[in-house]
């Protein structure tokens, strides 16, 4: 498959509403040329809507979409150089695999010989060469998925849109397809926009992740930055498995305390705050903050404990596999050396980095 040039996509005050339902209240973002952008967000936050706007399947309410500087929001789908892979594959059931892949070329009037060559090439790229004469009804889910991808890449689009393309596959197939998609993206060079609500897909595939919450961009950054410096409690609670703990705490005289008085971090902030702590950076010890275990998930390599503090706030803790606590058991945990994040208790936005404590009760 020859490399195409990906388009830079700019969203300029893009809004979309269905009647009174303002789904996208205003998006501004620039997606780099050839970049792999993952749009991540909970169900109903407007991910598919955004993708449909980019593809031209829905009309924008206001604002602009620019691809390589060209305004496209008024153009028909076929004039945008965009290809799309649908969640349910959307293969034409009455056409063979080859006809499915080649339909766009046929419409574009590509001569028969070249069409056949490009169909064969696209099919080879997704390892489907043997199935060209079958119909979609005679293929497995994974194979249909490949046909959908071949249908998208055969046109050598400058933008590839994926709407949760892996969600109908089983875990193993999903893993394999994920790696192939990443490789394919590097090979064909199109700008890819991939919608998912699976954070593992987002973390592994993305150059940058755009996190949507109720149609607004919470954060648009590299997976690493999103993991290390979540911009809000929403992002913090969305990324990581299990996600970050968010505790109500008080910041005063340079310290962040729990209601129990335990010092968790040093800070310059004052007043009520939300403190984020990654579950895998909390340790069990004999003298720290007491917690009661509610529930234990044994994941083989580690345990995930759902517990609660004395003031009732819940806390997730990742513990090594050597000791398996029981529900109802009283444990002590230490936040020393934990990765801590501070958020405004009201707006949920990130505050200046707090200082982690080195040992029990002593801020750095």
């Amino acid at each position, binding site marked *: 498959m020859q490399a195409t040039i990906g388009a830079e996509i700019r969203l300029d005050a893009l809004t979309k509403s269905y009647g009174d339902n303002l789904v996208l209240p205003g998006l501004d973002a620039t997606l780099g040329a050839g970049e792999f952008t993952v749009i991540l967000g909970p169900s109903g936050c407007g991910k598919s809507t955004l993708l449909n706007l980019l593809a031209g399947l829905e009309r924008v309410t206001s604002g602009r979409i620019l691809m390589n500087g060209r305004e496209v929001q008024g153009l028909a789908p076929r004039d945008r150089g965009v290809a*799309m892979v649908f*969640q349910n594959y959307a293969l034409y059931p009455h056409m063979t695999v080859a006809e499915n892949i080649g339909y766009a070329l046929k419409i574009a009037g590509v001569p028969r010989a070249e069409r056949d060559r490009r169909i064969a090439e696209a099919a080879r790229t997704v390892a489907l060469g043997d199935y060209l004469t079958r119909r979609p009804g005679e293929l497995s889910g994974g194979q249909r998925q490949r046909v959908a991808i071949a249908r998208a890449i055969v*046109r050598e689009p400058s933008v590839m849109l994926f709407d949760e393309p892996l969600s109908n596959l089983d875990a193993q197939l999903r893993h394999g397809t994920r790696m192939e998609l990443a490789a394919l993206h590097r090979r064909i060079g199109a700008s890819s926009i991939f919608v998912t609500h699976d954070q593992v897909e987002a973390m592994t595939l993305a150059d940058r992740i755009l996190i949507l919450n109720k149609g607004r961009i919470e954060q648009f950054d590299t997976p690493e930055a999103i993991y290390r410096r979540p911009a809000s409690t929403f992002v913090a609670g969305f990324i990581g498995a299990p996600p970050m703990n968010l505790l109500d705490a008080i910041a005063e005289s340079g310290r962040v305390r729990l209601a129990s008085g335990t010092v968790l971090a040093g800070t310059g902030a004052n007043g009520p705050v939300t403190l984020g702590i990654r579950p895998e950076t909390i340790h069990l010890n004999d003298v720290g903050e007491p917690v009661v275990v509610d529930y234990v998930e044994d994941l083989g390599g580690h345990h995930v404990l759902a517990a609660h503090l004395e003031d009732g706030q819940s806390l997730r803790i990742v513990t090594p596999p050597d000791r398996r606590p029981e529900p109802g058991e009283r444990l002590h945990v230490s936040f020393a050396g934990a990765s801590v994040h501070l958020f405004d208790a009201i707006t949920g936005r990130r505050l200046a980095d707090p200082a982690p404590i080195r040992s029990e009760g002593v801020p750095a």
Partner: protein
Amino acid sequence: MPPSFAGRWTPFWLSLPMLLIVALFFYIPVYLSFWWSFTLERPFGGGSEFVGFQNYARVLSDPIFWDAAWRTLVFMVFGSTLAIIVPLILALAADRMVPLSHTARNVLIWPKGIAGASIGVVFAFIFNPFVGIMAPLNGLFPGLWNPGSDGTDAFIMLLIAHVWNGIPFNFVILLAGLQAVPRSLTQAAAIDGASPWRRIRDVQLPMIAPQLFLTFVLEFTESVVSAFALIDTMTQGGPGGATRLLVYKIYQDGFKGYDLSGAATQSAILMVFVLCLAAFQFLYLEKKVRYER
């Protein structure tokens, strides 16, 4: 093993009423009319005489029979084609949610509740050359429209009434088919560059092939046999036999002309024709219809 009834005869008892009705109103008349087509029936009773194929020879050598047969064929081809194409266009529009499609959906279904004879009466009035919708045009171009004296006008009027009569059912069937086509398929086609017309041709029509097949089978039969009520109320076969289709000729010959054997013979021919048509559709066309989605 599929679940079965406890009593061996239970299925028989359960289906007996239906079997009786079908026998009484379908198989016995069919049998009788085939029997009569081989006999010479006296119009006022008093015995019959077996005459072999004489009735057939007589009917088939009658130019009026061939005239009616030809008109039936023309009516069948144009009537059923239009009675599918018009609802198809309406269904495509309703499926695309053009403005007012919700209202239209309801309005289009109501005619289903009207008997053919009533439609005939209403249309005869609507197309009346002096007070109907064509009256203003007749004022401008005198004699342009007069189904009472112009055979072509009468035939067109009959066609329109028939098509209108067929709209509700075919519309509902085709719209149901279109609505079952996943939206993502037409979206995918749009992204693949297909214009709305190509999407209809390449995606939507193939996807509703089963529904189209069903409407064609029913419509072909319908157009041959059920134009009777319309003809009887609007034109009585006239003017000059222009709207005398076979069904109406059979009625005229049998009940007006008291040629019972001739009418029975023509009924038999018509039945064989409709049967062959249906057989062809099922044996040949249905193979081309894919039901998988």
